[in-house]
């Protein structure tokens, strides 16, 4: 690797570390309790958005069921919380693994499809989960397998080291960073190479010995895993989940915002999470109808599709690069 690209790589790593350090150390101190909750939610959705971004940037596949999978992760997390007295981390891991498995099963019929048809199938899956959640509700400590009671008799436990909202925000940031690092390690390694080859041409990938079906499933599974972690964290953050919070339309919105943020870059997922959760909260705060944010998101999506294929993250990245060149 030549010196310039090595330097660029290093400066990118430092920028990411600096960003995370500010989020973990400074943010929870300077914002008040309502914004801690909003930011926690934004951080959690960042990870799910990174899952969408992974599938789209690596394989060009559209996944419109990510919010439904967050719901699945949340449901399993709540179910485990009331069923077993295991540590939060273990429950989170099990929820994520089961969600990943469900994501993989749902991806099986989609393996031979691309583009609009795949998007439609994933949207139908999201619609299916919307109905299932309305029918069975989320566990809140009641009796039976479904565990639903009229009034919650139990409580969703948080990690021992992160009982308070502020601590839970820090905790969520660290878990999300670990999740993004897991996906980034995939991108840089053997799966990332195979995905890039499949995206270029499936025939070429097969000719190079890549098992195309396996690697596509792998990507779906990893994306589902990230959604599962998000769902588990969300259950911990809100302590109770509402079946109305996971409609199919939300998955479309999160996908659209991932495109606006910029796929293929962790910053794009951060921007998506911010737009998805923080912008409507800011509007509410200053007395504007939060639904107005949808109009802005729509305009931003048009802008991204027409002029910024790498999203806001791509624009910021080229801005910094050109500033760097000017300073030389």
């Amino acid at each position: 690797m030549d010196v310039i690209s090595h330097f660029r790589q290093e400066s990118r790593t430092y920028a990411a570390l600096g960003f995370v350090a500010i989020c973990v150390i400074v943010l929870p101190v300077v914002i008040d309790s309502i914004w801690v909750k909003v930011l926690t939610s934004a951080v959690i959705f960042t990870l799910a958005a990174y899952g969408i971004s992974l599938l789209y940037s690596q394989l060009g596949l559209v996944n419109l069921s990510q919010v439904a999978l967050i719901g699945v992760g949340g449901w399993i997390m709540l179910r485990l919380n009331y069923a077993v007295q295991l540590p939060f981390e273990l429950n989170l891991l099990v929820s994520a693994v089961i969600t990943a498995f469900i994501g993989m099963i749902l991806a099986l019929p989609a393996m031979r499809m691309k583009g609009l048809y795949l998007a439609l199938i994933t949207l139908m899956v999201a619609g299916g989960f919307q109905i299932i959640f309305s029918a069975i509700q989320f566990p809140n400590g009641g009796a039976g397998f479904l565990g639903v009671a009229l009034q919650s008799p139990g409580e969703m436990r948080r990690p021992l080291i992160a009982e308070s909202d502020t601590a839970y925000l820090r905790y969520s940031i660290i878990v999300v960073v670990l999740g993004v690092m897991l996906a980034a390690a995939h991108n840089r390694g053997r799966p990332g190479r195979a995905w890039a080859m499949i995206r270029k041409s499936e025939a070429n990938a097969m000719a190079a010995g890549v098992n195309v079906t396996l690697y596509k499933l792998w990507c779906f599974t990893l994306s589902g895993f990230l959604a599962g972690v998000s769902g588990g964290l969300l259950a911990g953050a809100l302590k109770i989940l509402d079946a109305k919070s996971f409609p199919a339309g939300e998955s479309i919105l999160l996908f659209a915002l991932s495109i606006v943020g910029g796929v293929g870059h962790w910053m794009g997922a951060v921007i998506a999470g911010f737009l998805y959760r923080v912008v409507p909260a800011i509007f509410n705060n200053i007395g504007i109808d939060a639904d107005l944010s949808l109009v802005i998101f729509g305009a931003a999506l048009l802008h991204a599709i027409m002029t910024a294929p790498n999203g806001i993250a791509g624009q910021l990245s080229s801005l910094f690069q050109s500033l760097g060149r000017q300073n030389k």
Partner: protein
Amino acid sequence: MIRISDLSVHFGGVVALDNITVDIKDDIVGVIGPNGAGKTTLVNVLSGFVLPDSGTVDVEGVDLLSLAPHKRARWGLARSFQKVQTADNLTVADNIWVSLDTSASPGMKKHAALNRVLDYVGLADMADVPAHKLNPCQRRMTELARCLVASPRIVLLDEPGGGLSEMEVDKLRQVIGNIKTIFGAQVLLIDHDVELIKSVCSKTMVLDFGELIAFGPTETVLQDENVKAAYLGTEIKV
């Protein structure tokens, strides 16, 4: 040795390959023929992208047609495509690594294999360059390096010389000519460039409308009247 017996492929009413039977023993064998003769179909059948209607392909006792395309690659069958296929967002080295990931034999020293093949195709100082910055010849060489890196048994090259300048074809000639000596693989080379075929292929097979109309030493085949007629047509005397 590649033993092809009674191989036929139909696309609807079109006969793409018509009862091809041939034993290919030589190190580098050329496949020529006019457009639409069935050359690429032959490569697609061998690499698993087209299922034949009938026939068998046997290589060293292995029934090639029974394997899925990616398993053929892992077994040792590498191929390039007419339109060069490098993943633009990967570096040259990563493009080549894909084959090492899937097809390297156990115990193979992968980094050594990568450096050897990069040296061989002349891309040693470009390992970390993203593929979108390469010129067409460098892309072609990257693809060839990917085909060769995991020590394949058979390499199928589908018009590797297409779109290259004369100097670049000279370089390609050297690269293809030494594959057997350096990597031990048998090569099947499709190309329209008769000079390239003449200089590297000891034997050549000629296809026309899906039929094998000639197979033998390249010089002899190129002088064959049937072959000339297939390429140039026959004179009609009035």
